[in-house]
């Protein structure tokens, strides 16, 4: 798991590689100021941090499937004495682990 400092180094390299960057104001295309570039590094590092630390939450929500589909799995598990739903949930948790 990368630290915020390590992600900031990564973000700095990416912003350096992306230069020149532009902003559009009053339909003028202006190159970023030094302050804009510094903010872009901070924003990108924070975004990477959020994805690393909390990205699993949305990834799990999407992978679990709808509640209706999960209820259908549970119903069929009861009828057939299977563990499809439990296995599915375990697989999703394993595929998208919570950072330690």
């Amino acid at each position, binding site marked *: 798991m990368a630290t915020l400092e390590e992600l900031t180094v990564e973000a700095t390299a*990416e912003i350096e590689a*992306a230069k020149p*960057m*532009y*902003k*559009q*104001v*009053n*339909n003028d*295309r202006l190159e*970023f100021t030094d302050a*804009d570039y510094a*903010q*872009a590094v*901070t*924003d*990108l590092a*924070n*975004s990477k941090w959020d994805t690393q630390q909390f990205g699993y939450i*949305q990834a799990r*929500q*999407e992978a*679990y*499937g*709808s*509640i*209706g*589909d999960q209820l259908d799995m549970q119903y069929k598990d009861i009828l057939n004495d299977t563990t499809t739903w439990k296995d599915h949930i375990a697989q999703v948790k394993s595929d998208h682990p919570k950072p330690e």
Partner: protein
Amino acid sequence: MQGSLIKIDEEIVTSAVASISLLGIDSTYDVYMVKLNNFSSVTTGATPRVRVTKSSSADTTANYNYAAKQLRTDTTFGNNSNTNQTSWDILNALSSATGNIANGILYLFNFNNATEYSFVTMEITQRSNEGLHRGKQGGAVHTVASASDGIEFSMSSGNIASGTFTLYGLKK
């Protein structure tokens, strides 16, 4: 009533830029409206970032709260909310693939009021970076009691590929 929507600023992105600012909010109107049309991202999976501007510069302090319902065609609707962020995350991830664009309307309240927080309501329809149709409806607040004179759009990474961003005032 005819002439009730007054265009104040419009930014048409035809060449990729990292951010766009819609400026010109003052005491002329109480409520402003932003129209997002065909908003797309250069980077697949990048999420639009929205900030208020103070004296034409984006406010990057951690005072952005939002809560929204995420409408989805592929699974159960979700909830998105957060507090004390450095921007509003009020759209879903985008990409530059054909059709993966966002369209929507934001209403801006109290932006010019120096003694109240700046509030936003939003209604977005889009095809996400996975090519799924999604929508978002909800609200956001910037918890700083000072006047905001505009709104800035950028991406969590990479550039805005295209889009027409228009700011209107709602005639009193």
